[in-house]
């Protein structure tokens, strides 16, 4: 009987870990998407300072949670997102808006993919 209780405890622990991972990835990705969206729109409206602030916020948020997020997903995916955001910031600071739009869009696409891949949908499961 202790095996069954042990198994149920393990199941509980695994579910908690998975839910925590899901919650962390979702909230972080949502916040980063909001900041990147705001940065993109601000750049379009010509508010470069605000765009830089927003991208800085996105970068800071990603940095602060990166290590915990590494626990749940492959390092490669997050490294790719981080590099893309860094490049967007670089082009934004150097006023190369065309390249900024390209990199910011791909950052948004990557982070949306990253967020969506954890949803337990029919397509993701299959």
């Amino acid at each position, binding site marked *: 009987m202790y095996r069954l209780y042990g*198994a149920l405890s*393990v199941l509980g622990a*695994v579910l908690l870990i998975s839910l925590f991972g899901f919650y962390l990835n979702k909230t972080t990705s949502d916040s980063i998407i909001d900041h990147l969206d705001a940065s993109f729109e601000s750049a379009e409206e010509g508010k470069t300072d605000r765009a830089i602030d927003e991208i800085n916020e996105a970068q800071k948020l990603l940095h602060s949670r990166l290590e915990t997020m590494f*626990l749940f*997903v492959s390092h490669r995916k997050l490294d790719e997102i981080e590099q893309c955001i860094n490049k967007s910031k670089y082009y934004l600071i150097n006023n190369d808006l065309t390249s900024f739009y390209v990199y910011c869009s791909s950052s948004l696409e990557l982070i949306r993919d990253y967020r969506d891949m954890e949803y337990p949908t029919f397509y993701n499961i299959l």
Partner: protein
Amino acid sequence: MIISVIRTIILYVLILFAVRMMGKRQISEMQTSELVITLLMSNIATIPMQDTEQSMLSGIVPIMILLVCEILISYLMLKRSGIRKLVCGKPVIVINNGIIEQKAMKELRLSTEDLFSQLRQKDIFDIAEVAYAVIETNGTLSVLKKSQDDNIKAKDLKIKTQPSELKVVVISDGEFADSSMRFCGLEKDKIKRILKKENTSLDEVFIMTADSSGAYQIIKKEGK
């Protein structure tokens, strides 16, 4: 590289824990589903061991889920025979009252060579000796010999025998085995007295076995 070393140690401990939780059955006694799950677990464990870019939890979580499923299924199989039949199948009689069940063998895809090979492993070289043979759910063959070909037992001859006593190792390589001592109701002092009577000491003993009736056997270390 150091990350791989640490991860391997962690996963080794985890796999040991998982195998321990799954029970004590040996590979030959495992049900097919248990064997597949054991292989699957070891396969999953190798991924985060080798690929340090991969998160370790992505290996640990599936291993734990497989372990939980295995334990839950085995618990359900204990409680519900229907589930047991569904997961493990049921034993199939391949020799019934000395007659080979050809239809059953076809269904099992069991060749005559396989059947005879398994019979030979049970020291049966003549099929005429077999009354019943059953393929168990884990694929092993159980055989009931015809009564005239079976070994004679003491009770057949109505001979009175001594009750069997289980002998356990109470000293191994000069060290007491506490759980075995408890099993046969011996204490350290009593064993020391026996050793004194046998003119030997604890350090000189390679193996000492004893049973609950008080019988014992001492094998000394070589050169002592």
